[in-house]
């Protein structure tokens, strides 16, 4: 199982790298915002895999809290895009 978790960590890391390259090459702010969201979720995946590798019992709590609070960054970026208008 250790190999599986390390493989998943590598795949998530590649996703983060691809996303960062896309952020650098994107021209509009909406694309950058959504790729930031992608990097966020990939980082949550890496944290979960590390928690499963090291047998920390908070692995579900990590995903629970991050999935509930992940909307905050996206909505903040959306508000920034519209300069505060709804």
């Amino acid at each position, binding site marked *: 199982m250790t190999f599986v978790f390390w493989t998943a960590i590598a795949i998530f890391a590649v*996703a983060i790298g691809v996303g960062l390259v896309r952020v650098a090459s994107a021209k509009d702010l909406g694309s950058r915002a959504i790729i930031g969201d992608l990097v966020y979720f990939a980082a949550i995946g890496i944290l979960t895999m590390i928690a499963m590798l090291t047998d920390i*019992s908070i692995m579900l709590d990590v995903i*629970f809290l991050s999935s*509930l609070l992940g909307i905050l960054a*996206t909505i903040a970026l959306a508000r920034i895009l519209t300069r505060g208008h709804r």
Partner: protein
Amino acid sequence: MTTAIDVFIAFCVLSGSLLVLTSALAMFRAKDALSRINVFSPATGLGMPLVIVGCYVYLLQREGFSLYHLFIGLVGFASLIIVSSIASNTLSRATLLSGSPVHRYTRPNRLAYARGEDPHVDGPAAMHEPDEAQVGDEAQVGDEPRGDDPAGN
């Protein structure tokens, strides 16, 4: 039995991470910001919930059943789907309101033009945006341009 559970956990974890990677790669193929927000949804709608399922089964195998873990897993699963959908909706609204260009092949673009007033649509046949249910009925679609033409041309 343990091997089968391990294979299931590996399937969930690896397919979830591969879905996230696929969404990241699809960001290069999508042409505008709205499409990029659209192609992100497999990662949050299927990839991360699969990671949650794998994580929960792993925890179930290690520590046994716990009502708290089941609650946390279910709420996390549902909130990933619901909350990320709301976030994507809000972000796409903001993207469109901020004047981000939509790709020129986006047809019909009902966010920009009223129905039947799209200047890029060629001919009255395309002006009547056919419902998906009526597309299969060839006779009805073929008769439509001659029968109902509000512009008179």
